């Protein structure tokens, strides 16, 4: 039996539900059963995740209770959306160094990629610190699941939810291309942070991307920013595959 503990913010939900669904169908990883215990980090006893510079002891207790062999994390992940889902008064765009031929908004101020990267880095400080606290607190393997790419503009407009009504003006919702570029920049930062902390990183497989880089429709969640349990299932199995060499069969 492989046991693990999952922690995260909103994107952990699709992973948890995916894991439940796999369990419901009696799926195994190779010849082994697996069991995941998932915890939402905004939960009452787990927040703040860092207390006096160390991982919240309640989180450590959850890991211990689960008898976890590894930790699965899905921290943050919507920083790119917070910055770019709607355009500001001064529209912006940027050249993505990894894909410089992606189109640019002709009416936008073109910012250097460094501006986008350092801005995202600042918004990810809490996530980065939490990841470091996990790494410092446990010697178990840790894997971070790449946050899903943005959902397309039409989906944002169709499912604004009550929160969006106050701020969304359809003419100001950013292009799919800009939001994809923001997500790519964010994903690169996540990957770098994980590499630095010796944390495994599970990237989103190609089949989950639509042609324009947004999340493929079959993986859309119920709102404008999240993926669904099908995505969760796939990422759970991918994570297990990535960690296979590090996992010892347990009771």
């Amino acid at each position, binding site marked *: *039996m492989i046991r693990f503990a999952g922690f995260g913010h*909103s994107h*952990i*939900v699709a992973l*948890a*539900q995916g*894991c*439940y*669904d*796999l*369990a*419901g*169908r*009696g799926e*195994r*990883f190779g010849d082994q*059963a*697996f*069991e*995941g*215990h*998932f*915890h*939402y980090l*905004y*939960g009452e006893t787990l927040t703040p995740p860092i207390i006096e510079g160390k991982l919240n002891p309640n989180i450590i207790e959850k890991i211990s209770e689960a008898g976890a062999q590894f930790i699965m994390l899905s921290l943050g992940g*919507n920083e790119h959306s*917070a*910055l*770019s*889902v709607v355009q*500001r008064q*001064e529209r912006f765009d*940027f*050249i*993505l*160094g*990894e894909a*410089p031929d992606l189109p640019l908004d002709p009416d936008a*101020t*073109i910012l*250097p*990629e*460094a*501006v986008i*990267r*350092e*801005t995202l880095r*600042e*918004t990810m400080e809490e996530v980065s610190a939490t990841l470091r606290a996990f790494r410092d607190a446990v010697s178990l393997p840790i894997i971070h699941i790449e946050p899903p790419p943005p959902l397309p503009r039409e989906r944002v407009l169709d499912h604004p*939810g009550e*929160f*969006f009504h*106050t*701020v969304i003006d359809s003419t100001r919702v950013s292009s799919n291309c800009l939001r994809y570029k923001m997500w790519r920049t964010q994903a690169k930062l996540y990957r770098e942070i994980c590499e630095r902390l010796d944390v495994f990183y599970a990237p989103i497989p190609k089949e989950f991307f639509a042609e324009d880089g947004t999340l493929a429709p079959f993986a859309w*969640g*119920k*709102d*404008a*920013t999240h993926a669904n349990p099908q995505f969760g299932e796939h990422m759970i199995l991918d994570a297990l595959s990535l960690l296979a060499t590090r996992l010892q069969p347990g009771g």
Partner: protein
Amino acid sequence: MGSNPYSKLPDYANWRRAVTRVAPGELDPVVEAPFRFDASSRVMAAGSCFAQHIGRFLKSGGYCYLVTEPAHSIVGPKARTSLNYGVYTARYGNIYTSRQLLQLIERAYGRFAPHEDIWQEGEGIFLDPFRPNIQPAGFNSIREYEIDRERHFKAVRDAFETLDVFIFTLGLTETWRSRADGAVYPVCPGVVGGVFSPETHELLNLGVDEVVSDMTAFVRRLREVNPAARVILTVSPVPLVATAEPRHVLVSSVYSKSVLRVACEILTKRLKDVAYFPSYEIIAGGFASKNYFAADKRSVTDEGVAHVMSVFERHFIDNTPEKAAIRLALQLLHTSSADQADPEARSVAEMLKLMCDEEALDIDPQQDRRASGN
């Protein structure tokens, strides 16, 4: 004994009364500033690293520190600093020499285009040789670099054309120059980026005449686009970090500062509305009865900066009660907005947080947050 030129000297001209008897930290070597400005005057600052203190003081004091190349509203306060937004009026970085300043105005108005104007440091990393530290990891392509440089030059032009007061801190005389076209670099090629070659780069150690000539040409160019511009010159008290001359760094440092000080004296005598402010004398003179250098004997302590700026404020800033009230209002406005994220960005971030909370509530309560496959 009859009267002589020294018999009725004012206090400021007498060492015993102006220096020896002055309480520690009270030294004030300014007699009368040739002009003053108020809180509504648009002030541009540039120069060597000490110039950053001037900008910081003006911003925090509620003065009208001109920023023509602001960060986009998505950029948070920490990122603004690492990307050098608002450190100076525009993102030109440190300008150490008179030649570099002249070069900036010439480039901004398209009168000079250096031959060596980009350094490629690896795949997807391009540095601006004239501001190599302006942002982490440079630019990702020549196209991005050129777009940003155009915007930067426009911001520089806007600054020169709209400023009321330009404060320039002269820092160095040693600089590295391209043998091809005379372009000067803020940092020697090969140190932060680029490749140093004695065939293409040479040391230039500016003399008094050269500094005077550069600054005269700069002021002329500035007044072509802004006839009313007033200029305050000061010499950075920060010693050279290293010298390329074959001599002790202290000797080089004193030489550089001496050249700059003499050049300032000549410039203030020759040019109208050009003033000198004695930062160097307060900090590096060693006569303030305080050691204003940090342990590295190079960095200036906060106390030293505060002393310099208090003398500056006393003599150069017009602080009538009405003007002080305006300044206070501007100061409050600055402190309430400077370090906060853009309100709209905060609104979207909070909204997403709410959405994320909603998502979390969607975990199936029937399943005890546990899933197992067996």
